[in-house]
């Protein structure tokens, strides 16, 4: 009997050892990634740059190939440099970045998001300022308003490589059927909405369960009424959300709701469900970021006849409003950072400089990703919808970053909740403004 006990004890210990060993394995990986730059420190000739990114060959095949191409070219031109990649899926990437930043083992070059995401890293001196690159040969290459999203206290901590703006897509066939023109002014836009509701077509597809979708509409309304700076100032506390134009913007949203401008039950639908109203041609318009473009152009899963029907227009200007029709709501997606304590900082910066330029030349054609650098549409071959939008982008007078990205996480939640309440008519425009004021004041 005792013998049996001993055997089972041993088995148990073995099992536990395996469990513990499993836990230990992960931390080893992190150690190796950081250890790579040690050999670079002493020899000036051979340099290894560790590059951590989030485009696995499986789920982001096109981006992955593009990254590999750029790295191969770079290594050809700089034979002493080796770029070592570490690739993770989006969510894992975010988690790993958090963990390794706590132990100060960031890769030399990595991917980050703008504003709120970036802030703790910048404030913790984990990322190196890249302003010297911006004043170098990248000067003037970025679409205006994109690098600012990565700036904290006047220093730019990452260079954006993706850019999204939000046009209103519309179904040309539906517009034609009811003899509608693309609206240039807000009054014309209201006319379009009116005609469509009278004919029983949902004018605008919206899934506001996700809340940032409704935020886009409010932001444009605020922009067209108050001009590009009113909302920005309200967020950075030089202005206020109780500005008359911002309150009026909220009131206009509720007018649209009263007109039944949005599809039924929008507050209970997710963005995907809202989108399907547009894709099924039950709704005539849909405002969304340019990340949807492949669905309207190149995606083979979507019937060509539908794709041919999709056009876009800019959010119309409002009479008496201070906003410019060429001002966009949008935001850069991910950007590249260089770690502050990288042992090969200069080489890493040079690589980022090279990468951003090459990416800018190729990403839209190779991967359908609009880069944050300006694209010369005469030189590239693309679906017409892309070309038109890129041309608009080159004319952009302003880019207002998505409000929920600009705001601190806490205040962003209040903003998003208030958006849903505003669309659901649970608050008045004045209360809407007041709650924003309270939330932002609390965060500071």
């Amino acid at each position, binding site marked *: *009997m*005792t013998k049996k*006990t001993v055997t089972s*004890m041993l088995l*148990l210990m073995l099992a*536990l050892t395996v469990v513990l060993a499993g836990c230990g394995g992960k931390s080893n990986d992190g150690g190796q990634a950081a250890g790579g730059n040690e050999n670079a420190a002493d020899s000036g000739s051979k340099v290894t740059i560790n590059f951590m990114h989030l485009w696995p060959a499986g789920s982001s095949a096109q981006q992955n190939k593009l990254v590999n191409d750029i790295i191969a070219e770079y290594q050809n031109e700089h034979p002493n440099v080796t770029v070592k990649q570490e690739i993770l899926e989006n969510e894992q990437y975010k988690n790993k970045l*958090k963990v390794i*930043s*706590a132990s100060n083992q960031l890769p030399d070059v990595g991917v980050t998001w703008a504003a709120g995401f970036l802030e*703790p890293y910048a404030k*913790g001196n984990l990322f190196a300022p890249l302003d010297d690159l911006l004043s170098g040969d990248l000067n003037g290459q970025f679409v205006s308003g994109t690098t600012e999203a990565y700036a904290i206290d006047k220093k730019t901590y990452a260079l954006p490589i993706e850019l999204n703006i939000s046009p209103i897509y519309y179904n040309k066939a539906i517009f034609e059927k009811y003899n509608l023109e693309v609206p240039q002014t807000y009054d014309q836009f209201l006319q379009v909405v009116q005609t469509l509701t009278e004919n029983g077509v949902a004018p605008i597809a919206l899934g*506001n*369960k*996700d*809340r940032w979708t409704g935020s886009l509409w409010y932001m444009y309304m605020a922009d067209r009424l108050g001009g590009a700076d009113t909302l920005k100032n309200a967020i950075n506390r030089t202005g206020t959300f109780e500005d008359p134009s911002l309150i009026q913007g909220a009131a206009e949203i509720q007018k649209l709701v009263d007109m039944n401008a949005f*599809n*039924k*039950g*929008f*507050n*209970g*639908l997710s963005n995907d*469900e809202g989108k399907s*109203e547009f894709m099924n041609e*039950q709704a005539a318009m849909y405002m969304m970021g340019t990340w949807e473009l492949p669905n309207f152009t190149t995606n083979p899963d979507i019937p060509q006849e539908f794709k041919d029907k999709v056009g876009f227009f800019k959010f119309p200007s409002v009479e008496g409003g201070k906003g410019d029709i060429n001002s966009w709501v949008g935001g850069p997606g991910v950007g590249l950072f260089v770690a502050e304590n990288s042992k090969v900082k200069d080489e890493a910066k040079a690589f980022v400089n090279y990468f951003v330029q090459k990416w800018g030349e190729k990403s839209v054609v190779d991967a359908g990703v609009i880069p944050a650098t300006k694209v010369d549409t005469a030189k590239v071959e693309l679906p017409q919808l892309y070309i038109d939008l890129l041309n608009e982008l080159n004319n952009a007078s302003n880019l207002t970053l998505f409000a929920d990205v600009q705001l601190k*996480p*806490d205040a*962003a*939640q209040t903003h998003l*909740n208030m958006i*849903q*309440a505003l669309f*659901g008519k*649970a608050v008045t425009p004045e209360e809407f403004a007041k709650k924003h004021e309270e939330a932002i004041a609390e965060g500071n």
Partner: protein
Amino acid sequence: MDKVMSNKYVIALYVLPALLLILAIIYVPIVLTGYYGLTEWNGIGAMKFTGFDNYARVLQDNAFWQSAGHSLLLAVFSAVSLFGYLLVALVLSGKVKGANTFRKIYLIPMLLSSVAIAQLWLKVYHPTNGVLNSFLESLGFSNPPAWLAETSLVLGALFIPILWQYAGFYILIYYAALKNIPASLEEAAKIDGANAWQIAFRIKLPLIMEVIKVTIVLAVVGSLKYFDLIYVMTDGGPNGASEVMASYMYHQAFRGFDFGFGSAVGFVLLLICLIITWIIRKLTESKDTIQYS
């Protein structure tokens, strides 16, 4: 074997691995959560010790109490619906034709994952293409409501799938408990002239009282910490109308990056669950358990 088991060290050795794991995975995190609730912490960076600030904030937070109210309402509905499940189980455990098939039918929702159920009911409730509204329209209602978008309806609309999801589980528990009652008792009662009603309520129910108590606790505590369907179907919206305590905690911690406050909410949620469990135990306490065998 008895000799081995009488050795205290051996007992300790057998108990230890499980005990260590439970301590490390459950109890230590509970204590840590309570501690995090005392700090201001955004998930990265340094924690700042702020004493009981977060807990004071939770207690004064209207949004929290609103969500707590929703959770309690769900708990009440779950507890009341147990009565219905009990009736179904009583019928099934009798000699009904096809009882076995029915039992399986009731159990199927239990086998689906919560997310699948949520997707299913999202389709049912879809404002224009959903089964429910199509049905209502065919009956002649011209403008059926958007179930998940109306603040006054959303909670009720969510309770139905939640109750539906667990119905089979409780029916199965009751069914098993009722089947455990020796047939001789029922026969003896019949000989003494008891009718079916009396057999059910005077003999069977008292015998499974312990099981009923356990299911009440399970249903109430399960409801208080309920999260999944609500997270997928409405995410607490619109405008917090379907927010429950667990989803509120999630939103504060993981969306608002306020892990200190989120932990405090989580800890208060734990305390509420403990207190209510204790109250239920007190209310259903009986001096002597009935045994007929």
